[in-house]
């Protein structure tokens, strides 16, 4: 058995097998289930660690299985995929811990954790996909695996949210499929290649390529929640908190954003995309999304909905970074893929803690909550400041490179978008911080539960604190080796090398 050939598959299987076993596990075997979950997560992290090291040292990992005549299922580790894989693997671990704590004693945990693992499998598959069809495969798997998580509660609202989610994502997937096949008939290959594989096509195909680009971006933009395709995301907030956390920080929206990165860089090639003239409209769409979603967020009283609109806005940073053609902006976009994930998952964990411990769902109920749950709110504060882009947090690093990239590429208008977004971010995050730290508590909380020694259960408290520290560290130690920033630089040298 050749290690290099099977490692990518092993990484995918490490959660797929866990998922399958959990599905058939009886409901009351919660110890076994937790052990399996954490074991799988730990194994994945180890494997990913090995892989990151290998990729850095020039190893080539690739699993190739025949899928159709002429088309293979390819799982390949390149620098870009490692960025996403590492993020998913790391955050899966934390979210699993969190979910175990969150869903303690709730029904249907086997189903939940099964789909949860399946979801991560799909995400890792999306990350490792070596060609467009493999990507598509895992992308759709992700859609399906998240649906049961959204409707997990089984309420009417959950069902409605699930329906909306499916309408959006299935339609998006269909467009993606169409575009993929179209591309295949044009080129006969779908392999992701650094700097794209389309630039050699005859120029008479260029109008078609523009259409394909639009189709691909629309299909992916549904998951990435680009305006006006973002409608499903705030609704999907009815899901349990770990789902929102994973969905919004890692799995779904990131899969969309990651797909857009892949399409722009490894299918079309950034320079070729720019020459087709499709990057500027993409940048404008991203900018509109950023501003629009932030404005919507300002007026949400429901905490998770506000965070959801914030996600819509923040994910478009990634797309903006890609659409501004230039190495600096690329670094900004890619590093934000990780940074946004870490920060947003912190925020969602915290929101979940508030809901689970005190029954707080609305911002107007949060008066003085910082006194009751200082650790949670401290983590929330770090996450929020990160989102605003305050130094030295992770968000600052992303914003820094985005701004630099914009100036470098001569697209000064982006600066105003960034500034406006920062202002709006401050506008919708700081009031939360203010009321939770400085206002007097209203008396009793909506539904308080006692968890003993700490402000809430330890399994709920540790993940957000860890991710908050991570968000701080990612910013402070941005230039340390193997940091996401350094890794994004590494990728960029590959994509822009002459």
């Amino acid at each position, binding site marked *: 058995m050749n290690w290099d050939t099977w490692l990518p598959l092993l990484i995918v299987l490490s959660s797929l097998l866990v998922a399958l076993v959990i*599905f058939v596990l009886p409901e009351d075997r919660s110890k076994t289930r937790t052990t399996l979950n954490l074991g799988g997560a730990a194994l994945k992290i180890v494997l990913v660690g090995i892989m990151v090291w290998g990729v850095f040292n020039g190893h080539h990992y690739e699993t190739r*299985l*025949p*899928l*159709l*005549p002429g088309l293979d*299922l390819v799982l390949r580790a390149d620098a870009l995929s490692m960025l996403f894989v590492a993020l998913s693997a790391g955050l899966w671990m934390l979210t699993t811990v969190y979910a175990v704590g969150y869903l303690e004693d709730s*029904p*249907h945990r086997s*189903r939940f954790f099964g789909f949860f693992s399946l979801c991560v499998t799909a995400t890792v598959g999306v990350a490792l996909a070596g060609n467009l*069809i493999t990507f*598509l*495969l895992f992308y*759709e*798997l992700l*859609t*399906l695996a998240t*649906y*049961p998580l959204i*409707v*997990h509660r*089984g*309420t*009417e609202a*959950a*069902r409605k949210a*699930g*329906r909306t989610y*499916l*309408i959006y994502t*299935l*339609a998006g*997937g*269909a*467009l993606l*499929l*169409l575009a993929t*096949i*179209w591309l*295949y*008939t044009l080129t006969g290959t779908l392999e992701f290649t650094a700097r794209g594989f389309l630039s050699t096509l005859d120029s008479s195909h260029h109008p078609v390529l523009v259409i394909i680009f639009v189709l691909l971006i629309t299909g992916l933009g549904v998951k990435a929640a680009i305006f006006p395709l973002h409608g499903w995301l705030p609704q999907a907030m009815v899901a349990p908190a770990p789902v929102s956390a994973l969905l919004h920080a890692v799995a779904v929206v990131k899969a969309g954003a990651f797909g857009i990165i892949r399409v722009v860089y490894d299918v079309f090639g950034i320079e070729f995309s720019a020459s087709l003239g499709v990057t500027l409209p993409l940048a404008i769409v991203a900018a509109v999304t950023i501003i629009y979603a932030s404005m919507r967020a300002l007026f949400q009283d429901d905490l998770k909905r506000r965070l959801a609109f914030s996600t819509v806005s923040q994910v478009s940073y990634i797309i903006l970074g890609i659409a501004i053609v230039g190495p600096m902006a690329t670094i900004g976009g890619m590093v934000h893929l990780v940074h946004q994930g870490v920060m947003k998952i912190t925020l969602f964990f915290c929101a979940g803690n508030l809901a689970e411990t005190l029954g707080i769902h609305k911002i107007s109920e949060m008066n003085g909550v910082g006194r009751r749950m200082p650790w949670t709110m401290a983590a929330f504060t770090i996450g929020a400041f990160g989102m605003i882009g305050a130094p030295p947090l992770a968000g600052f690093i992303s914003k820094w490179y985005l701004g630099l990239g914009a100036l470098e590429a001569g697209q000064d208008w982006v600066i105003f978008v960034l500034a406006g977004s920062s202002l709006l971010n401050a506008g919708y995050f700081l009031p939360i911080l203010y009321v939770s730290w400085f206002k007097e508590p209203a008396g009793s909380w909506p539904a308080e539960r006692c968890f003993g020694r700490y402000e809430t259960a330890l399994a709920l408290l540790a993940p957000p604190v860890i991710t908050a520290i991570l968000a701080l560290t990612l910013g402070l130690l941005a230039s340390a080796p193997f940091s996401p920033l350094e890794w994004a630089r590494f990728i960029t040298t590959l994509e822009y090398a002459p």
Partner: protein
Amino acid sequence: MIEMHWVVIVILLPLTGAVVCFLWPRQTVVSGLITAVGLFASVLGLTWQVLEQGALRYAVGGWGAPLGIDLYVDGLSLLMLIVTAVVGLAISVYSSAYFRLDRAKHFWPLWLFLWAALNALFLSADIFNIYVTLELMGLAAVALVALSGGANALTAAMRYLLVSLLGSLFYLMGVALLYHSYGSVDIAILSQRVESSPAVWVAIGLMVAGLLLKTALFPLHFWLPPAHSSAPAPVSALLSALVVKASFYILLRLWLEVFPLTNTVPGQFALGQFGLAQILGLLGAAAVLWGGIQALRQTRLKLLVAYSTVLQIGYLFLAFPLASIIGWKAALYLLLAHAVAKTAMFMAAGNILFYGGHDRIADLDRVAQRLPLTLSAFGLAGISLMGLPPSGGFIAKWLLLEAAIRSGQWWWGLMLIVGGLLTGAYVFKVIGYAFTRSDLPHEPGFVPKRMEWVALVMALLAIVLGLFAPLPLALLEIGSPFGESLR
């Protein structure tokens, strides 16, 4: 080495089994199951034989055409045999738990009889034999529909019978005209002799019309939803998975080998076949839309699944205007995937009906919690029907889309996507209700585990088909049923 006559065995074995089941009703389940397993093994044997030796031609009793009966196996018919064997085995296992003995003693002989007819149909090398087997199949199917009794089932069966006979007669008329013109009913001989003539065109028209009626292509599908939905679950499964496919198979065979006027005479009649293909494509597209919308409107689970079959049949006909090898392969892969997935879906619906005593979608009442295996089966089968990866349906959809875009007729591909979305809508309509509590909670019945697992296994098979596509696709190449020059 002793040469086994697998070709004959796969026809005779179910016939024998049927007789045995009929004669000894007490042992009917056991003998039926043994026959099913034996049949499955025989088809495997035949597959192995064909893989070794290539396409086979077998003269029964050594008489040979024109008076004797010739059997012929190539990749196409082999695939159909395998589909039948796989689905048949699953249905047999499912039925062994589904029917009580008073029904079972009627079910098993009819079912094995139907199986024999199907196998014979796929193996027939001449168009008259096909007529005979078609009729046999139709009669057995009608009897099976009537099995559950009740006014609805009986009227549905009656309507089905009339439609079936009507279709067969149209077909037979076409056979008569073809025989008159060329003096043979052997497909291979006909394919060399057929030329464009008014008589041939009339024959083509009659046969196509008859077969479309039996395949239930929109707008000739009216008989299908009542028949498929009122039959017992395993019968619905085999009707949707196999019986309608049989007439499609005939149509495809004729289209590929007896009708290919495009190749021989370019010019006016080529245009004629092109036009016919376009009409078939249009009807297919209409079926996709109509079936999808109707399925969405249904409040009964089995009717929903039945309309889903109408939609999927529409898909199959989208391959005709594309007229390329990829297109045909796509259609056949779709047929395969649909057969497996639809079996799983009807079985799941049957389980739900078994469990709740009704199949009102709005009152599914937490099936997701109570019958997780069944709902998983439904969901997985739905994925394949939607054409989402990784599933057999996805591979088929991919190939069909590829063929559509390659031939420059992307609008057919668009229909495919629309159909996929409609399928998604109605599948998730069901799944959505399965999560919630209904207003009328009901007393749950007991569902044998076997029934749940068979459904799940079939659904998983539909998914796995998406990962091992090269194998069946290579199988189809044997004997090159699609010709070489079309690519």
